[in-house]
């Protein structure tokens, strides 16, 4: 799930505030951690994520909480370090025994760990894409489509949304909602996608 280590378009110069938070119960502990993952969902929701698992499918926040034991995972996107530092602090206070993974610039994670007096446990590092890369769309399109780790956001949908925004038939805000909808894990970043749409439609 998520495969967010392979997101493109994130650099020290741009889109550098995005942080995906992933909280996962090991599958053998799903039953015993049912209440813990519900609590984790409450905590994550209380920090108003930009997007969260289930939301693109129209699942209401209170239902996400109830469904979280069957998901075994909560995924959410944030756009500032301060919020994530506070979120982590509360997660630690509750000592839920659930794995927490951050996906962001490694420098951001280092800073957050430092402020929380934590050390990183395991890294997932992308070397990028090889093979027939000529089959890939342009970089701007990829910076939207790679936000869905399962690659469910189609380049053709990006092209359609950009055309509609250019013609004035759709706002960039609504366009970002439509592009986030295929991603069931709820990790397409609405704020960032809106910004990329505006850049693409204006260019």
């Amino acid at each position, binding site marked *: *799930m998520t*495969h*967010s*280590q*392979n*997101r493109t378009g*994130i*650099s*020290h110069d741009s889109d550098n505030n995005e942080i995906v938070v992933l909280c*996962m119960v*090991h*599958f053998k*502990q799903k039953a015993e951690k049912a209440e813990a993952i519900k609590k984790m969902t409450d905590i994550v929701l209380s920090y108003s994520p930009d997007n969260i698992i289930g939301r693109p*499918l129209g699942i209401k926040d209170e239902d996400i909480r109830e469904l979280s034991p069957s998901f075994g995972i909560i995924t959410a996107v944030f756009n500032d370090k301060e919020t994530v530092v506070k979120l982590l602090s509360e*997660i*630690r206070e509750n*000592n839920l*025994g659930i*794995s*927490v*993974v*951050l*996906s*962001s*610039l*490694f420098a951001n994670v280092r800073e957050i*760990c430092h402020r929380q007096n*934590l*050390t*990183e*446990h*395991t*890294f*997932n*590092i*992308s*070397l*990028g*894409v*090889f*093979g*027939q890369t000529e*089959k*890939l769309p342009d970089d701007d399109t*990829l910076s939207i*489509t*790679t936000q869905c780790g*399962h*690659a*469910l*956001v*189609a*380049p*053709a*949908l990006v*092209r359609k949304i950009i055309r509609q925004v250019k013609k004035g038939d759709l706002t960039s805000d609504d366009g970002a909602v439509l592009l986030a*909808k*295929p991603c*069931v*894990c709820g990790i397409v970043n609405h704020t960032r996608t809106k910004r990329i749409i505006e850049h693409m439609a204006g260019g």
Partner: protein
Amino acid sequence: MFIDSTLCERCMDCRPLCPVGAIRARKKEVVIVQDECVECGTCFRYNICPNSAIKQLDEIPYPRIVRAHFSDPAMTHESIDVCGRGTEEMKTNDVTHSYTEDQIGFSVELGRPGVGTRLYELEKVVQKATSMGVDFAEDNPVYPLIIDHSTGKLRPEVLNEKVLSAIAEFTVKRSELLSFISELIPFFNNQIETVVTVSLIARCDKNGRVSVFEELERNRIAFYPNGKVNLGLANI
């Protein structure tokens, strides 16, 4: 997935939704090209069709069901003892300790992002990695498809199935990292007829450091500045 032509009014609204371009206009009909569709479920879940003409079979037969197992994240995977598209890999490594400091995990994802792959391309990768003596992750849906662990041969009936992506996950000795990268990357570039996304999993030392970054930099191997980090909170 298929389109019920008696309900379809040919508005074409569904067409851009398909990540692999399987929804096409054919003569006077809009169709889902069955050989291209990877059964990801996106067109159905998006609820775009005004007439509910996009239909899902009640039960997809084997071996076609393998497409959904590898492509649809909302799919449950009981039917052929396949349990999800990938493993929990590093996400729960603070519980499982599957990756230790003297190992490196490789995740080789064929077809991603958005190109798709036939499983015969996956077989090439599994055979290559097998010939290099790796251990494959057992809780990955690729594992039950391997019928001969000495050669990396996959079940023959699945080879022509198309999926959105398939991930071969395996571990190598930490000391073998560079030799694996230098043998595998040219193989992917020259022998694989789709895109291949490669990532590494590295367990940190007690100070939260890994030497992999320096080693990659020293050898001019590019890596993304962003990635996933398990914070080890499950055991605190």
